[in-house]
């Protein structure tokens, strides 16, 4: 599937004044290239280096762009004076609102930092470049819609709005229910636990509890209700830790999945390079390069 074949796109990510804007534009450009566009990425001070560069520049033409392009993407400064039928502009809060910002700052301002972590401990930022990459995905969706519609369009993507959009449950709980979700709060019964060879993610729904209780061999009636497990979180965790610590991630996952409990192993990206599922579906190419994360009629799209 190469729906953007024949389209020329100017990727001004390396000219961005701030890192989040550059990374967002780079991701949108990366995916546009994977969808078949000729993506031109002129060199600049924010050009990604090392593994980041190999990932984000894949499929792009590094250097000057032809005079006429179908679309251009970047921040306000990079796009000043640029002419293209479709303009995709990234900002912090909206057009022209670009105070100093980082992805860490975006997570903090959106509440998506505060909600991640254990109640007693610090909040923790999502790894990698999630706020910027998510903004790149939002920009890509709007860019494709605009190119398909034809004509001129100016797309505005606010990095802050996208990060808040990802964190909608916190906003909705506050605005609709008047309840403030707290990190490690009343709904925090999913967490990681040490296994014999790493960690697993304990994830389950109430309907899974009888199967989970049976798997763990628990008989303490204090843990029979969700309210009880949440109220006695530390005691509950202490009661179940030995079962997990005595087994490997694979053993735990096998036992849980046999009972249809959505527990899974914590895997490092290095382990994913030899992951059987990824190998079977041809997700990772040479050098660990990920393909587009979908198949079309059973075939992995090039790009």
């Amino acid at each position, binding site marked *: *599937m190469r*729906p953007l074949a024949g389209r020329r796109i100017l990727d001004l990510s390396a000219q961005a004044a701030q890192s989040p804007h550059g990374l967002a534009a780079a991701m949108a450009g990366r995916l546009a290239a994977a969808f078949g566009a000729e993506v031109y990425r002129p060199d600049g001070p924010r050009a990604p280096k090392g593994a980041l560069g190999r990932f984000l520049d894949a499929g792009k033409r590094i250097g000057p762009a032809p005079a006429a392009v179908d679309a251009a993407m970047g921040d306000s400064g990079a796009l000043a004076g640029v002419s293209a039928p479709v303009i995709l502009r990234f900002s912090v*809060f909206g057009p022209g*609102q670009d105070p*100093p910002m*980082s992805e*860490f700052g975006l997570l*903090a*301002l959106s*509440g998506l930092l*505060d*909600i*991640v*972590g254990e109640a007693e401990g610090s909040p*923790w*930022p*999502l790894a*990698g470049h999630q706020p910027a990459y*998510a903004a790149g*995905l939002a920009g890509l969706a709007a860019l*494709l819609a605009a190119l*398909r519609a034809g004509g001129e369009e*100016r*797309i505005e993507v*606010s990095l802050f*709005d996208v990060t*808040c*959009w*990802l*964190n*909608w*449950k*916190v*906003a*909705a709980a506050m605005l609709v229910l008047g309840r403030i979700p707290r990190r490690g709060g009343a*709904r925090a019964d*999913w967490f*990681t636990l040490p296994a014999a060879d790493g*960690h697993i*993610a304990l*994830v389950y729904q109430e309907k899974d509890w009888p199967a989970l209780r049976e798997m763990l061999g628990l008989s303490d009636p204090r843990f029979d209700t969700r309210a009880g497990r949440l109220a006695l979180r530390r005691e509950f965790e202490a009661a179940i830790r030995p079962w997990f610590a005595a087994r490997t991630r694979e053993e735990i996952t096998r036992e849980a*999945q046999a009972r249809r*409990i*959505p527990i*899974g*192993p*914590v*895997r490092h*990206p290095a382990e*994913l390079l030899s992951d059987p*599922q*990824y190998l*079977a*579906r041809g*997700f990772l190419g040479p*050098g660990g390069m*990920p393909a587009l*994360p*979908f*198949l079309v009629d059973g075939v992995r799209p090039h790009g």
Partner: protein
Amino acid sequence: MRVLDLGWLTAGAATSTLLLDLGAEVVKVEGPGAPDPFRNWENADPEREWWNESPWFNFTNRGKRSLCLDLKDPRGQAVMQRLLARADILVENYRRGVLAEFGLDPALLRRRFPRLIIASISSQGETGPERDMVSFGSTLEATGGLAALTGPPEGPPIITGRDVNYPDQVVCLFATAAIIAALMERDRSGEGAHIDLSQRELTSFLLGEELIAAAEGHPSPRHGYGPNGETIRDGMAYWPGGSAPVRDGESLARAPEFQAGTAVLRAPDGTPVKGIPFRLQSRPLSVRGPCRPLGADNRSVLREAGLTEEEIAALEEAGVVATRPRRGPPR
């Protein structure tokens, strides 16, 4: 553009909402025996129309038409085939195999409706040895590599949990793009497509540089607050060159830039609903309407599909179309 939305919870349903925002007409199809699980909520009152009152469901599914149709019944399956004949896009995120049980096997649909775009959003994808692995969003953070790099350098890996379920959120953005890409491809070729989207693969894709670094023999450690000296002190997040308050939900809701933004918008009746993560200058986007009651559009949707009043009445009489779930809220 007509979308049939078999999406549940966030991943499928919010993808269809984005397509709605971009101009599509979306009909959400739910069975009376198996409505979207988002309709079940912690304060559901069995004495009331609890299925129409779920804040999570209503927030996500605003503006869609609602058809309550039993896809387990052969008569419901026949109706679905008529709807598909007029549809451009089918969005689904059922457990693998369920679609086929409803006579909606993607390969069959591709043959019968060659212009149809079928977007299957699943945790692992349709193929592979782990295709049947049961996962929620936070399971995929673990299996996709995100959790291993999130959290304290010397402590346990961290998952986002029920209040975020991060992969379920971000997949909606990518799935929308993939569906529009397939539409563009159809514009050129006349051919539809079956998009088999793996949420786990997307989670890993969004760590692409980490996969490459690992393959080059330089796997990243867990950086905690970040690799560039980021830290948190006294409720503030600091990074080289800036700082910001670490907001909770309450301070977020009060923030002027949040109120002026597009992450949460208002339905015409004033209800806060899921927003739109971009703006288009030539076509201001807005929320079309509030969430419709279950089955509120049964008759109009079925009429448009060519069913007669007698046929519709017979389906209602048989309970194949309905306006309420067959069971009460789970206790």
